């Protein structure tokens, strides 16, 4: 195993460890947090409800994608 293969394997391990089976879920959570921070700090809205809604939507959408073709 050369250095490039080792680096690829290392990257693949951490991608799988953190992101998992569906990268859309990770992307939606990051977007949800960014929107929450923007709403709180820029628009001065205490948007505590935003991230749970995004999390539920991410789970439902990911499940729909995983099962719609089966």
């Amino acid at each position: 195993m050369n250095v490039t293969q080792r680096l690829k394997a290392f990257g693949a391990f951490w991608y799988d460890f953190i992101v998992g089976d569906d990268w859309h879920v990770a992307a939606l959570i990051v977007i949800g947090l960014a929107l929450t921070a923007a709403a709180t700090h820029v628009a001065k809205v205490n948007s505590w409800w935003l991230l749970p809604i995004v999390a539920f939507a991410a789970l439902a959408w990911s499940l729909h994608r995983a099962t719609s073709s089966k």
Partner: protein
Amino acid sequence: MNALPLILTVFVACAVEAVEALTIILAAGITREWRSTFQGTVVALVALAVITAAIGPAISYLPLTGLRLVVGALLAIFGLQWLRKAVLRATGYKSLHDEASAYLREVAAAESATKESRRGVNDWYAFTLAFKGVLLEGLEVVFIVITFGANQKNVGAAVIGAAAAIVVVTITGIAVKAPLTKVPENWMKFAVGVMLTSFGTFWGAEGAGVKWPGNDGALLAGVPVVAAFAALCILWLRSRKTAAAAPAKQPEVVA
């Protein structure tokens, strides 16, 4: 906040990882050689101790707001992935993670591998199998202990939960000398997914600047809400599967 929810969450999450590590250790030890398996296990535990000693104190110096934002995001992502898998398994869209079949797969692979001595280890295959299994599952335990402990400013309680889980699983494994097939692993993963999603969403939003109504009480209220939503997802997918399996209604033929 009371330390009990923290201890219980860490206990269940770490018990799931410990069961998976135990399966790999048993497969390596029974089919190959116990001495090399124990060597691999001990080296992995030492590596985990070094990682914990390096990361643990460093993380306590990070600002709590930034820590909660990053850790909350990671926990919410982990939790939703666990919930996704648990829901898919509960509805039959994904096969159940069966410790018995996982054990048989590891045993078959271990039996077909050739024996090779390396670096003072009698059976290199048994050593690396145990080392990788314990290190990978252990990394998840370390992550859970450090993040939960640091965020709740109670690393001691998190360590108690993790240590209790490892002790219980190890003693049970020694007693039955077989993979813990009776453990309802999918429902444990469902519960862990609920807890990780709830804690992750709570800390992540707090790190983004949100003030939760009821402060820490919002976390306790959030857990049943997440569990109820995931349960609804199971019902939704089951009804969807039943509808897909039902034969299409024949059009009425008028004579």
